[in-house]
């Protein structure tokens, strides 16, 4: 990684020039990526002042939190309730999915049984079935279970994530059997081995999986749109989409809403970020 030195006095002029070009390119790319966020933030702090201006006023003249207050006090949806729903669904779905895929990964990595490879292939095959085919019957199945418009429906749909099972299996295979066998000799239960040895030894993978599951649940739009139909069950994403349909010209309110839906996931990301690269690398992405 740190194969070349940063101390300028050792560098030839050509190398310094190359470095400047490199920083200019990567910074320009970063600015391009950030422009939509900057525009969103700047607009969300604008109150009565005009938004459609030429040139754009990137720093609001009279920064105000009134747009945020308006989103929170919106009458067409209950912002507090939507926030609670989003958090509740994202957290329960994440816990359920991380547990369920780690447990499956543990079996596929460490406990051989007859027909195991076939079952694993079946899991992998589900990755290739597009949502389009399963979406409509899933809806009618949940309807038949009388679970439409409930948290349970979202949790049940989160039970399997084939990519997650694959990721956990790859990581858990790397843990040496000796640890597990030693624990078993000491009379540890399977649950204890799983929670006290397996999961702690695969922290990067668990962190990657947690971010993936949380992102999936927090950002999901199509599934909640179909399943959570009543006002009290709306998530933040659905609320923001509703706001988008009705806000008309009020960009500042929409942008405040967008900021409020992004903040929680951003915080989660920054918390687990340092584990992610590691987790993905062990995940067997070599193909």
């Amino acid at each position, binding site marked *: 990684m740190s194969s070349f030195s940063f101390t300028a006095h050792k560098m030839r002029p050509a190398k310094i020039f190359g470095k400047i070009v490199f920083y200019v390119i990567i910074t320009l790319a970063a600015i391009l990526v950030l422009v939509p966020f900057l525009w969103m933030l700047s607009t969300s702090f604008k109150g009565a002042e005009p938004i459609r201006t030429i040139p754009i006023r990137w720093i609001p003249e009279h920064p105000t939190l009134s747009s945020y207050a308006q989103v929170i006090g919106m009458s067409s949806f209950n912002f507090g309730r939507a926030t609670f729903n989003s958090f509740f669904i994202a957290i329960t779905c994440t816990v359920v999915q991380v547990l369920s895929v780690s447990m499956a990964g543990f079996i596929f990595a460490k406990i051989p049984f007859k027909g195991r490879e076939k079952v694993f292939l079946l899991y992998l095959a589900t990755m290739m079935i597009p949502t389009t085919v399963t979406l409509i019957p899933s809806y009618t199945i949940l309807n038949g279970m009388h679970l439409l418009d409930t948290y349970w429906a979202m949790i049940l749909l989160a039970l399997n994530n084939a990519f997650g099972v694959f990721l956990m299996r790859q990581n858990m295979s790397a843990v040496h059997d000796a640890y597990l066998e030693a624990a078993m000799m000491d009379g540890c239960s399977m649950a204890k081995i799983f929670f006290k040895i397996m999961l702690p030894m695969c922290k990067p993978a668990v962190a990657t999986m947690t971010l993936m599951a949380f992102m999936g649940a927090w*950002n999901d739009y199509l599934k909640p749109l179909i399943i959570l139909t009543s006002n009290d069950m709306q998530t933040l994403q659905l609320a923001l*989409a509703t706001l988008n349909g009705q806000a008309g010209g009020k960009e500042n309110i929409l942008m405040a809403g967008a900021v409020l839906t992004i903040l929680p996931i951003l915080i989660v990301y920054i918390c687990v970020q340092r584990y992610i690269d590691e987790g993905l690398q062990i995940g067997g*992405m070599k193909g």
Partner: protein
Amino acid sequence: MYFPNPRQKRRTVTAFLLPSLIGVVVFCLVPIIVSLAYSFLDYDVLRPLSDALFVGLQNYKQLFSSDEMPKALWHTFQYILYYMPLVMVLALVEASLLNRAFRGNGVYRVIFYTPVITSWVAAAVVWKWLLSGKFSPINQFFALFGITAPTWLADPNWAMFGISMAAVWKDCGYFALLFLAAMKNIDRSYYEAADIDGARWYQKFFRITLPLISPTVFLLLVTTLIGSFQVFDSVQVMMSGLPTQATTVMMERIYTYAFKSYQMGTAAAWSWILFLIILVFTILQFRLQKKWVNYDV
């Protein structure tokens, strides 16, 4: 791992596999069969299933006789044609930039990844305004050079391209992260040997990096194509309140038939056609991989 007690082993396997297996069976395997059956029915989901009529291939016939399908397919293809090459090339550039030691590497990585963690709804709400015409930052940027940029989403000729641009912005960081992971797996000795031979950077990229990460490129091409055929969230949120005749994509049709007009049979037929199209393209990709994917290392 060795189990002294087979009964304990059976219990463990069952208990640990059960939750995910419920997901696989109830929400994937059963739905495949059910959805095929639906596609032969005239089924209004608001009424009991016993009221549904068997109509044979009627749903499929109807679907091929109108011009809805070619239109939706064409819009979906447009999205794929704009989005896939752009996102792949830009992500490769991004990963190559990040694949070297420099101060601030971590900060740049977080910046590039932020669009990925943003929800499509939030991203689409922002991009809807970025692509709204005259007053948007994009159009004002072009105006600096005296270019009048199109009104993007409101212009039927540019709407799908606008949506694709937003998707490239959103997904680039994800692809770059996976390319980067693959690049870090490449043995440094290849580059050292190339340096001794006096290879230029582009020779190193096309002769060493690209062939050695081709399995990752292939994996992403396959999964992305499957995902791109099902583009929905971005189109739905960005086009809300705008004329949509130039942006009706396959998934939007399926959603509308199933959950707006409650014609589950028609929707299931659409989804099976889409599935078959995806299947053909996926098989094609697997056939072609022998020509360019390198599994030797």
